[in-house]
């Protein structure tokens, strides 16, 4: 159950336990995240996958308390020794951008159009590191160089609209890494980019994560991205974790029928360049007012029976005999090899 702690075990950077999020809306409550648990080690890349609307972004934003006031967050998010759920806004501000940093999907709009990229990077350093203007600028040049932007000293004085999408995302990454955070949350960082640029940005993320020992939580709906850079995978459906495993394990033997559905839709290298995104599984992700005592995927599942509709499947070890044993799935009728 617990991760054994030894001298050689990598340091756990972030530990999330039973994280749940409910929104109050004018149409009543929306349960967006339900008892999600995971942890990420320093230098590790954990991918969170699932279709759009599965609660990936809400989970990401909940980590550093960035959800709007209409959200009720319960459970626990531990960053080292500190508990972030319920922490004061002031304490959270110190964490955001310095210990837990974010990279978002839309590089076109995520940078402020009226400030130079240099100013936007320096801002983080000035707020969290108390650096002066000069020092922050100098460090910003270093950071731009680190993320592979040519002529960093010159480009520092330019505005976001003068950068291409890929370069802008590099700027976002430089900004996120400015204070050497323990955790980097990247929410669909390459979704809006050209396929040709995606791989380069992913490589950069993975490379920097390993080099700086940053734990990366990579959110994506694209299993192709997962295969490229993730060490471990968390599959989310309708706010719940339905399967979690090492990347290789999951690709070799997915157990949950939702994961299998996603796999069936995995674009192969050739398919990927023409389609760029997942093929759809029939049906839609439900928006739930409250979490039912049932498998939320039952309505779309080929293997569902009465049990699936009346009892919630627990997330149980699902490893094949002889494998590492971190594989877990929440399914009453997990698929075996033949079923694939």
């Amino acid at each position, binding site marked *: 159950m617990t991760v054994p702690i030894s001298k050689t075990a990598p340091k756990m950077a972030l530990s999330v336990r039973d994280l749940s999020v409910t929104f109050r809306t004018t149409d009543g409550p929306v349960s967006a995240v339900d008892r999600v648990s995971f942890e990420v080690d320093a230098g590790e890349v954990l991918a969170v996958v699932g279709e759009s609307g599965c609660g990936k972004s809400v989970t990401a934003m909940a980590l*550093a308390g*960035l959800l709007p006031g209409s959200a009720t967050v319960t459970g626990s998010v531990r960053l080292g020794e500190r508990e972030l759920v319920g922490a004061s806004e002031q304490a959270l*501000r*110190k*964490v*955001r*951008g*310095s210990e837990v*940093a*974010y990279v*978002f999907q*839309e590089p076109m*709009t*995520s*940078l*402020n*159009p*009226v*400030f*130079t990229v240099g100013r936007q990077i320096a*801002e*983080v350093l000035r*707020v*969290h590191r108390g650096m002066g203007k000069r020092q922050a600028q100098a460090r910003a040049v270093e950071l731009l160089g680190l993320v592979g932007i040519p002529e960093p000293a010159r480009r520092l004085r330019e*505005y976001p*609209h003068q950068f291409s999408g890929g370069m802008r995302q590099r700027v*976002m990454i430089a*900004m996120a890494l400015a204070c050497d955070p323990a955790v980097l949350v990247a929410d669909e960082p390459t979704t809006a980019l050209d396929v040709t640029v995606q791989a380069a940005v992913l490589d950069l993320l993975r490379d920097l994560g390993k080099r700086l020992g940053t734990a990366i939580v990579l959110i994506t709906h694209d299993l192709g991205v997962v295969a490229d850079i993730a060490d471990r995978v968390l599959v989310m459906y309708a706010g719940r974790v339905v399967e979690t495993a090492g990347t290789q394990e999951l690709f070799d033997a997915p157990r949950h029928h939702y994961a299998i559905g996603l796999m069936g839709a995995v674009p192969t290298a050739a398919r990927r360049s023409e389609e760029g995104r997942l093929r759809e599984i029939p049906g839609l992700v439900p928006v739930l007012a409250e979490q039912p005592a049932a498998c939320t995927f039952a309505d779309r599942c080929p293997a569902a029976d009465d049990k699936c509709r009346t009892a919630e499947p627990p997330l149980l070890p699902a490893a094949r005999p002889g494998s590492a044993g971190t594989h877990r799935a929440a399914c009453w009728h997990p698929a075996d090899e033949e079923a694939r």
Partner: protein
Amino acid sequence: MRTYLLNRLWQSALTLLLASIVVFLGVRALPGDPALAFAGEERDPESLAAIRARFGFDQPLLVQFWKFLTAALSGDLGDSTRTGIPVTSMIGSALPVTIQLSVFALLVAVLVGGATGVLAAVRRGRPAEWFANAVALIGLSVPNFWLGLIAIIYLAVGFGWFPASGFVPFTVDPVANLHHLVLPALVLGSGLAAVVMRQTRSAMLESLGADYIRTARAKGLSPRAVVGSHALRNSLVVVVTIVGLQLGALISGAVVTERIFALPGFGKMTVDAVFQRDYPVIQGVVLVTASAYVLINFLVDLAYSLIDPRIRVTGAAS
């Protein structure tokens, strides 16, 4: 940048020429005779003819216009047909009053309107927003003259806090000068403040919902930095545009306000000149006002490119 400036200069000259033609023909289309106004009691045909000859009204329109234009280019706008005083010196004493009034009113509008607009956006759906909206509605719907009268009745006559009318040049007594301008500036600025408030509010709401605001919050910036720096800077373009568009309303509002508070400004001079059919003064006033418009628009465009790097003046020229 150079081609832009040249383009701009040539467009401005054309605008001013058109404005002078329109006003030149316009005043002459008005019923009434300036010579009669100048003549006063002596209305015998000879003296009227002498007056017309003195101001050149007996010459063909084209010749009159040509003379007006060439003289204007050398800085001479002719003499008032009512008082005989050079129009340029009349403008020279009236214009500073109006400029001072307009600038103060603009400050009132931008400071009050901007602050309440930001407040209404940040405190969305809370009492502060209702309050700001109510103030804006009043500011928009109450006419200047009524507000002016109320201000005079209560603040000037009733409480005696401010003078009810008149003007003291800044160079003579700065404190008295400012004291005399407080009420007029508040009255003139109120309408524009309401417009600025509403535009600032909607621009801020849009900015605050933008992705870069999410980024700013995720960077750990304080709400003050998020709102006051990241969101506000993006809303300024809208505010500057509105101010630029509303300056016309501000100048016509100045005419009314100057009359209410008996300020010896441009507005009063214009109204007097129109009633007296004082052609040279009307022409001069319109020419100066048109120049002011041209200049202000240019400044607004420059301000754009300072605020938002995506707008480049060189790009606008081509």
